[in-house]
């Protein structure tokens, strides 16, 4: 499925399909035409994806064929033992977690799963966690701390679920508790934003020593549509809001919010999931190996400093104006 701004790509794909159909029908030799069209297609994809606007990046991050949690589990981990329940209320299907092995590292893996089919999406609540999901994640992180293995967190959620039961069971408290506990968790935490980093719902499992982002993923304080509805009084202005909010990986790296961008294959993760998994696995493994060498004291001091620095008021720079 191509997105609206991929019209030029769709056209070349159509030409290729037509040519193949013609060759099948009349047996004509189209080999050289086909290969030049293929080259043209690759160049066009490269061109379109090197010039993505922030709003187009939002669309790619939400692409229906973009790899989701279940794909990353299969594609990057040699073992996954899923574990269930928050020991308080239930087992949130939006939040998946368990023991997992990545490279040579045994870890606890947590992340949001959006589901692929309609039934799966409904069951996973479209990747929007209730408080039970955050509490399940915290329980598993505490288990990682007890077993002294690191936490790997994969973030892909539009938001924490805004529902009646979510409020009754303390959505705010569940997220707040995770932020507080993750700040002091005594094992390394490596976070990767793979798709949508939707506000507090994402941050609830995204406080870490290393925060990585796939090159076409987004991370925002509010969905661009929501911001546009409030500040522009028109949800249609989402492209403007996406631009103003600076939600893309390069902007976030520049602001010092994230530590590294994982390059996606040309044309986005959905065009080559296998290459995406290889790049993401290698980036996570590298970070885990580095963090494992730090003493507990150093690890926690560094993590605290990392967050204390974000938006810190610099008296020398700011007091003059």
């Amino acid at each position, binding site marked *: 499925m191509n997105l609206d701004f991929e019209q030029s790509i769709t056209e070349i794909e159509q030409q290729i399909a037509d040519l193949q159909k013609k060759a099948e029908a009349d047996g004509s030799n189209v080999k050289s035409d086909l290969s030049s069209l293929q080259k043209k297609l690759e160049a066009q994809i490269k061109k379109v994806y090197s010039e993505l606007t922030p709003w187009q990046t939002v669309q790619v991050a939400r692409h229906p064929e973009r790899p989701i949690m279940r794909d990353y589990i299969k594609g990057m981990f040699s073992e996954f033992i899923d574990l269930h329940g928050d020991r308080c209320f239930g087992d949130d299907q939006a939040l998946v977690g368990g023991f997992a092995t990545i490279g040579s590292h045994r870890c606890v893996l947590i992340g949001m799963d959006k589901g692929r089919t309609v039934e799966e999406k409904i069951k996973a609540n479209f990747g929007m966690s209730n408080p039970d999901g955050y509490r399940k994640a915290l329980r598993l992180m505490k288990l990682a701390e007890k077993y002294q293995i690191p936490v790997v967190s994969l973030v892909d959620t539009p938001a924490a679920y805004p529902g009646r039961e979510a409020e009754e069971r303390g959505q*705010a*408290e569940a997220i707040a508790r995770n*932020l*507080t506990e993750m700040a*002091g968790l005594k094992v390394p935490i490596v976070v990767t934003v793979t798709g949508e980093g939707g506000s507090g719902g994402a941050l609830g499992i995204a406080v870490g020593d290393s925060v990585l982002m796939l090159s076409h993923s987004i*991370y925002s304080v509010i969905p661009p549509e929501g911001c546009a509805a409030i500040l522009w009084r028109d949800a249609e202005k989402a492209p*403007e809001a996406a631009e103003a909010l*600076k939600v893309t990986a390069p902007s976030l790296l520049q602001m010092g919010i994230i530590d590294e961008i994982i390059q996606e294959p040309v044309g986005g993760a959905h065009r080559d999931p296998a290459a995406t998994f290889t790049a993401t696995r290698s980036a996570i493994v590298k970070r885990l190996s580095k963090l494992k060498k730090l003493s507990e004291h150093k690890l926690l001091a560094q*993590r605290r400093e990392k967050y204390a620095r974000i938006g810190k008021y610099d008296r020398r720079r700011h007091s003059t104006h």
Partner: protein
Amino acid sequence: MGWFRRSRKKQTQPVEQVDLWTICPSCKAHIYKEEWAKALMVCAKCGFHDKLTCHERVACTVDEKSFRELDRDIKPRDHLKFSDAKSRYADKAKETTEELGINEAILTGRATLNGIPIVLGVMDFRFIGGSLSSGVGDKIYLASDYALRHKRPLILFSASGGARMQEGIVSLMQMAKTCAGISRLNKAGIPYISVLTNPTFGGVSASYAMVGDLNIAEPGALIGFAGRRVIEQTIKQTLPPDFQTAEYLLAHGFVDRIVPRSEMKDLLAKVLCYGRRGKPPCKP
């Protein structure tokens, strides 16, 4: 002609009198302004707790003349060069600062409360909806740092619509930063009490405001994660009238107590006496 003049004079008189009265925003009762102020903006008829400015809150919470402000110089910073359809964030922040005479949506400082040394933070909803900016996050983190170094309990009064959108992701990260500050107090055994006032939502309720050793709320305060309208649009149902009130949160187990404004200071002093970890008891 004199008759006309007299009549005009009479007409202007009631206008002057209205100034002495205020109308309760909740029950619309007319209340004598002096009484209203004496009752700390609490309606004598219906018990409605109106919003306080940060200065009013400080005045009714800590000992007279004991408050010393910390980090007063911290101001909003326009990290994203943000502007929307109407205005630039930098201009809006500057205007708000000049209009209100405060630099950010929170006032922090050290003070004594019935003689007990504390660190206090008080949010001000008038300042861009009490939104959590990098300045607010920094002031809270520094207040927690001060509390840690001087072994003083920290008390934060929240009043906020959530994160400050105009500071984008930097604002979101203040949730993690302030909680990192609270986490250190937890490890050091320094008391942290959160007082939730009307309204406390979004990025503030989902960070420092909900993780107090005690969460205390003012009567009737609206407290939640998502706004009522957003939830109604999502679930396509109307919500109960008491949804997200302090009383509703008490019933669901997320606040410890609901404390009327007039009793807040004494209650805070009493509970602080339990968190002294072997130090001699205090006399509130």
